[in-house]
């Protein structure tokens, strides 16, 4: 069962295939090495034997049979080669080589149970034959050594290949097992759990890294949902209980119709506030999920700034404040028109709402280097450096603005929209006043 599981893994199949291919080429190399070695050794041997035979033939030509036999007796003694001379009647006159055939050229001769002899035969005058031979023992041994070397090589390859295949499949299965158990842990509710990633970064690790990123994203989304429900639980409790008090108050004693109407109207105003806060929270959550990013299109930010300024200028004027706009035309970025409109609106509206009369508000859109820079500045009271990061948090309201209308979500929405557009939002000191600096990457540079 376990073996079958191993064999089914892709890594085992792959290593088996490689092993087969490797073995085939190994055998092919072995065969050719064997034959080349044998051939080259035979060639050397035959060369030296032929030279010896020619020398003896020359001796014979000079000194006749006696000289030859004497030479053979001496050389046999040295035991380098073996010799044999055959007479007219096929009788062997000298040397240890016997039973060779009376035929000029090469022949192989078995001597006893020993190795083959390579024998070269030369025809002498008077139908005598001279044979010079050399044992093929060395060649045979070399051949055997080559074959043995390759066989043990093949054995080693087989052992390593099969073992390696098993090891790889085991490693693969172990990884899969680790991923499986991590996934099971996540399914059973441990959302912080991540898939294991090894250092060697193979395809599985890359996949695991990608899946982990996905899990991070899902985790962030879940946190977001959690955050929203916490916010709702925390900050809607107050207005809802206020609403309840009012309704209970109205029920306590009989009232006149106009008093009831008054109570109903105030209760209705309270529900409106609650709903507005509620939808603002949902909106932040939706923006933060980033799903709007897929619908990004080139948006003319200059036009948006212009139209929002145009919409809010009368409101500012009515409160004795002035808006001065300096807008470089036709600056575009990839984004969501509706959200960017809300962003500019919230920033400008914030500047109008949280400043005293006679405040001058500057809104300025221009290219700064290769970036779009939007500055919304006022010369109002400003925000102390320590509180600046806090005003971007949900529901955070400065002491001085507790009494102004709003739910403390305007800048949180703005911050979420800036984040969605990969922009930067900084709160700076305008001495006096607050200066918001937003930086975006323009469309043509994407």
């Amino acid at each position, binding site marked *: 069962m376990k073996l079958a599981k191993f064999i089914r893994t892709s890594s085992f199949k792959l290593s088996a295939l490689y092993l087969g291919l490797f073995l085939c080429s190994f055998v092919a190399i072995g065969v050719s090495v064997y034959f080349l070695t044998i051939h080259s050794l035979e060639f050397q041997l035959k060369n030296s034997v032929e030279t010896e035979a020619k020398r003896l033939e020359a001796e014979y030509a000079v000194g006749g049979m006696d000289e030859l036999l004497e030479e053979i007796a001496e050389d046999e003694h040295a035991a380098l080669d073996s010799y044999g001379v055959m007479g007219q009647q096929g009788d062997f006159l000298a040397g240890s080589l016997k039973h060779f055939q009376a035929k000029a050229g090469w022949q192989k001769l078995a001597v006893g149970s020993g190795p083959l002899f390579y024998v070269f035969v030369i025809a002498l005058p008077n139908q005598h034959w001279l044979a010079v031979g050399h044992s093929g023992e060395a060649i045979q041994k070399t051949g055997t050594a080559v074959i043995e070397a390759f066989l043990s090589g093949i054995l080693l390859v087989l052992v390593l290949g099969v073992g390696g295949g098993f090891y790889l499949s085991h490693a693969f299965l172990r990884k899969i097992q680790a991923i499986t158990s991590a996934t099971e842990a996540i399914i059973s509710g441990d959302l912080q759990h991540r898939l294991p990633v090894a250092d060697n970064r193979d395809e599985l690790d890359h996949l695991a890294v990608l899946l982990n990123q996905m899990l991070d994203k899902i985790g962030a989304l879940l946190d977001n949902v959690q955050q929203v429900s916490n916010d709702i639980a925390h900050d809607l409790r107050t207005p809802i209980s206020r609403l309840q008090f009012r309704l209970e108050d109205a029920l306590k004693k009989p009232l006149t119709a106009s008093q009831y109407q008054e109570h109903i109207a105030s209760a209705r105003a309270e*529900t409106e506030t609650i*709903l*507005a806060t509620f*939808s603002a929270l*949902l*909106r932040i959550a*939706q*923006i933060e999920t980033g*799903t*709007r990013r897929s*619908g990004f299109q080139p948006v003319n930010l200059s036009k948006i700034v212009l*139209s929002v300024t*145009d*919409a*809010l200028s*009368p*409101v500012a004027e*009515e409160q004795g404040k002035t808006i001065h706009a300096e807008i470089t035309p036709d600056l575009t970025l990839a984004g969501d028109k*509706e*959200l960017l*409109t*809300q962003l500019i*609106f919230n920033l400008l*509206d914030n500047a*109008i*709402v949280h400043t005293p009369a006679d405040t001058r508000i500057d809104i300025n859109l221009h290219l700064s280097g290769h970036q779009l820079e939007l500055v919304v500045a006022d010369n109002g009271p400003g925000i102390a450096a320590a509180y600046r990061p806090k005003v971007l948090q949900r529901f955070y309201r400065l002491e001085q603005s507790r009494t102004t*209308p*709003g*739910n403390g979500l305007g800048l949180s929405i703005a911050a979420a929209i800036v984040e969605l557009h990969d922009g930067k939002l900084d709160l700076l000191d305008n001495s006096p006043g607050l200066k918001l600096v937003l930086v975006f990457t323009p469309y043509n540079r994407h």
Partner: protein
Amino acid sequence: MKLAVIEDDKETRAYVANGLKEIGFVVDSAGDGLEGLLLAKEGHYDALIIDRMLPHLDGLTLVKTLRSSGCNVPVLFLTTMCGIDDRVEGLNAGADDYLVKPFAFSELAARVNALLRRPRTTVDLKTLQVQDLEIDLLKRLVKRSGHLIELQPTEFRLLEYLSRHAGQVVTRTMLLENVWDFHFDPKTNMVETHISRLRSKLNAGGKADLILTVRGAGYIIHETG
């Protein structure tokens, strides 16, 4: 005028249907998508008010089915789906307007009236005439009793929208969406400020108010004085 309300929540359905009956409409209602589709196909309605999330057949599919069968009766989506993309999705499916729950009944009434008055095929008007007001849409000129009134572009768009819907209540949200293209609720008196500026320009020389405030609902310009 005959309307159909397709909404699965009993209480909302009754609230909407009764409210519309009170202001003079004939109203039929259905509690699920399939029933609603049958009703819409057979009933010859002047407008449909449809919830997005319905049992058996969701509102989006219902509208798509209606539109693909060649039915072009005005449709208003009434829904709790207030997602930023939901509105676009709803309008793309063929709805004419989109109202997110919770809503004020006056808002619904105004929008239904606007739908019923909306010409089925857009006519290219060159001029608008309301009471003693004359608007040249091509030259972007406004005259009241023959006197030229100079308006800012936004004020012109505001007046144009109100005049195109003369005789109907136009809500603050409708103005925000159609004049400024703002699809969020700005918690300021922005609309009121612009209206009061426009009013003072129109009323220059002691003339009577053209733009009337309808308490708790919006604004109206009557067709005749």
